[in-house]
Structures are given as C-alpha cells and as structure tokens.
C-alpha cells in the first residue's frame, strides 16, 4: 500500500482538455480558461521527434496529466513488463502532475485489442486489479488514479457493485480515482440504474480528477436507448447537470473535457472548457 499523502494530486482544480497535436499552436496562442492538459501515455512512447518536442514546450505553460489507455490493469495475465517500463520512462522524464488509467482490460496474451474491455466485479478480479495497481504505484513511485468504465453490459457472476468495488480498491491500494461523469451517465442509462444513486454510493473523497465528454445514442436489440462512449461531440446537457451533482459531492476538482474523435477546431474545444469553468465557478459561488 502506497502512502498517498506523500504524493497529493497536483493538478489545479480548474478546466483542462484532452490534448490534440493539431491544437498545438492555437492552444498556446489562446488557452482561454484551460490550465492543464491530459495526454494519452501511449502517444508519447516513441523515442523522440515532434510528440516529445511538443510536450517539452507545453509543460512550461500547463500542468500535464498522463492518461494511460494501454496498461490493461484488469487483464487476466501479468502486467506487460515492457509497457510498464515504457510508462516509467515517460513519467520519469516528463514528471507529470498526475497519472491515471482505467478499470478495464485491453491486452490478451501477446495481443493489444485497443479498446477498454469490461470486467466482472468478483473477489478474484479485485485481488488481481489491486495487485496490478500496487505494481504500477510501486514502479512509478507515485499514486495513480483509476477511472470508472463506460458499460454496455454486465457479468452475471459479479458480486460487487462498481462503487463498492472502487471503494475497496482505494482502501487496499491507496490509489485515487478519476471520476468520469460521462461514463457514469452512460453506464446508468445502459444498465438501468440512477446516475445520482451511483454518485451517492461512490467514494468521492478519493477523487483526484473528473472527466466529461461526448457520447452517441444508439439502440439495443429491444429498441432500448443504448449510449455509446464516443468522445466525438460536445458534452450532452444532462451530463453537465450530472457534473454539477458530482461537484457538490467532491468539491473543487481538476475537470477535463475529452474530445478524441471528429476533433473540432480549437475555439470549439476552448468553449467546452469555458463551460467546465462555469461549472467550477458555480460551485465556488455556493
């Protein structure tokens, strides 16, 4: 178990955005309310070139959060030692304010499936994920944040609720949590529970960062609404409303807008960050 007090989250309780390289110049010229940037770890695991040069320039003006999408913390097998070593190399030279990963799996054997795949919430999964989180935190020498998934289905064998599962992981490993409010909204809709009920049961004391992002609407086999975690459009109004509810529980928190597909021009993303700024300001005014 890591002593989390030695590594408090250092991201500012302000708006951040998921960084896209095409925004490099426009973002630096007019950051608007954006105080920090989140980068996907794997995109910066090359040996050099423009990606590294951009990060070196950006870290002078912005706090940086490294967000992994490939560690497969929920994988049935051992963590990929090579990948963990690459992550350590990146974190060691970049010294980001935060590192986060997902409660999901993506690697099976020698294959990387490039998606965040779901886990059954069982005692066996709990033990395995806790061991993997310990390994990551010990290797990196810092606390990590763990993000709740967007779900389209559940496992019959699950014996834990997702919120209890996350609470127990925090208790066992000392990790923090990345609360993705869009994912809560998606999972609640898709699996038929209330999003506010989920947040009431969620260990909000452990939250070091919040995500909001866009989703798409589809239908399942029965014609029921099925929300898809696409990150390809503006944040939906009900997700902003749910964010207000979440912020009342967490207090001021670093707040990230994610837009990873059909990426808009910089002013559009900056405007979304402006909405995140309003949500944080409304909390301060209360």
């Amino acid at each position, binding site marked *: 178990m890591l002593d989390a007090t030695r590594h408090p989250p250092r991201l500012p309780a302000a708006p951040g955005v998921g960084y896209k390289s095409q925004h490099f110049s426009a973002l630096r010229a007019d950051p608007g309310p954006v105080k920090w940037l989140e980068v996907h770890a794997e995109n910066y695991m090359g040996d050099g070139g423009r990606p590294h040069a951009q990060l070196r320039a950006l870290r002078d003006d912005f706090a940086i959060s490294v967000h992994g999408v490939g560690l497969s913390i929920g994988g049935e097998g051992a963590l990929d030692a090579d990948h963990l070593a690459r992550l350590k190399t990146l974190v060691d030279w970049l010294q980001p304010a935060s590192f986060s990963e997902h409660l999901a799996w993506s690697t099976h054997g*020698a294959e990387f499936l490039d998606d965040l795949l779901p886990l059954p919430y069982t005692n066996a999964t709990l033990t395995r994920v806790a061991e993997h989180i310990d390994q990551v935190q010990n290797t990196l020498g810092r606390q990590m944040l763990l993000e709740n998934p967007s779900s389209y289905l559940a496992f019959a064998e699950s014996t834990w609720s997702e919120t209890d599962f996350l609470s127990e992981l925090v208790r066992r490993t000392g990790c923090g949590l990345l609360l993705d409010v869009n994912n809560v909204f998606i999972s609640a809709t898709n699996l038929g529970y209330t999003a506010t009920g989920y947040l009431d049961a969620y260990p909000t004391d452990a939250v070091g960062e919040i995500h909001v992002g866009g989703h798409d609407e589809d239908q399942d086999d029965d014609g029921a609404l099925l929300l898809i975690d696409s990150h390809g459009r503006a944040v939906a109004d009900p997700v902003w409303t749910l964010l207000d509810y979440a912020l009342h529980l967490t207090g001021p928190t670093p707040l990230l807008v994610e837009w990873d597909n059909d990426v808009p021009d910089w002013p559009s993303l900056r405007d979304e960050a402006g909405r995140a700024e309003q949500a944080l300001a409304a909390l301060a005014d209360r």
Partner: protein
Amino acid sequence: MHSGQSEFRTALLDPAQPVPNGLTIGQGKPITKRFAVYRNNVTVALVDALKASFPVLRKLLGDKNFDQLAPTFARAHPPSTPLMMHYGAEMPAFLAAFQPLQHIGYLADVARLEVAMRASYHAADTTPLPADAFGAVQPEALLAATLTFAPTMHLIRSDWPLYDIWRFNMEESAPKPRAEAQSVLITRPEFDPIPHPLDPAETAWISAILNGDAIEAAQDAAVARAPDFDLSPLLTLLVQQGALTHLNTPKD
C-alpha cells in the same frame, strides 16, 4: 457461467463466433447488440489506425478496397503492443502474400515505405554531423572511415519507381511515375520525415555504409553500378538533412 478473457477476445475479433456466456443486462434480455459495441469499437479503432498509417496504400487501393482489406489484416494481425504508432509493421508481408492483390507488385514496397516514414517520425532526436567534419580528416583516413546514420534515416530498397509512386499519390500535379527502379531515402531534418529518390548506385553506396563498410568500399560498390558515380550530391544531401551523426575514422 464464467466468461474468461480468452473467450471474450475470440468473440471480439470474429463476428461469426457466439457472444460469450455469462454476460447480461437482466434475465432473458438479448445482448447481441450490446456485445457488438465492443466488437465495433475494436474493429473501428484498428481500421482507423491503419487508415492514418497507410494513406498512400489507401489511395492506391481506393477507400472501398482498403476498408475491406483493413479488417482482414486486423483480424490476422492484431496489435502486439499498445504502441499504436507502430501498428501495421506486418502489412508489407501480408500484402506480398495476399493473393487477390498480387497483380499489383509494388503495394508491399509502398507499405514498407509508409511503415518507415512513421518509424522515422517517432525516432530519437540526435545531433547531426557538422558539415565541416569531412574537411578535418586526411583523405586516406576518410576512405577508411565509416559513417553512422541518424535513427531517423531509413532506406527502402525497391525495384519499382517507389519515390514517384509515393509522390504521385501525395502531391497535387506530381508527374506520372517513370519506368525505373527507385529506392527511397527517408531523412528527418527536424520533425517531418522527407522521402528522396535514389538511383541504383546511390542505393548501393548507402547500403554499404549501413552494412558498416568503409567509405572506400561503399564507393567501389556504387561505381560498380555506375562508373561515373559522383558522391558529392548524395553526401551534401545527407549532411544537409541531418541524416548522419558520426564520422568514425580508424584512429577512433
């Protein structure tokens, strides 16, 4: 019933497989479309990565053909690491063995070029060899010297007009490919890899240097291809583009 990740993975990449056991959204409700979200996510992610990585190949095949080829490739060769920047390294070999496209002989070489352009983009930054490095060495020592290339430099040997094919598909109003063999030299002066055409003698010279041969031996290999081979333009290009990092004279 327990649904292991092995079973999940098999059903993800092969739509003909049944949805794994043990997944639910409530008693008796069908979950085919819900599982299909994961199937679709994986396929779209891999196909999008291939589209971004092989723009010339996609242009040569046309969107429709590429969109059929990419999922076939992805099922046969899912990524072996989370470094999606290098995904598709097996594409040249896959194309070379892919029966329906074997009548287009240069496709595998184009794929090799596109894999190398990406590798160059992400390669380590190094300090280039200064232009005056050659003048500081005695002629005899120079002939016995070897050279070290920057990790951003790549040589793609080809029997096809590979550079012309690349340019014709990437640049507006580029001339039609000539009927000649062209290898391609990739350099990265700063951040953007640049392809350059090489004739057979230049290709022989760079191949020899890559092989660790001394400059004199490389010169012999080039002259064997073209008796009037002149190294100056090639050496100027390599130095100006920052493609060399070290001149290793025997006393070193």
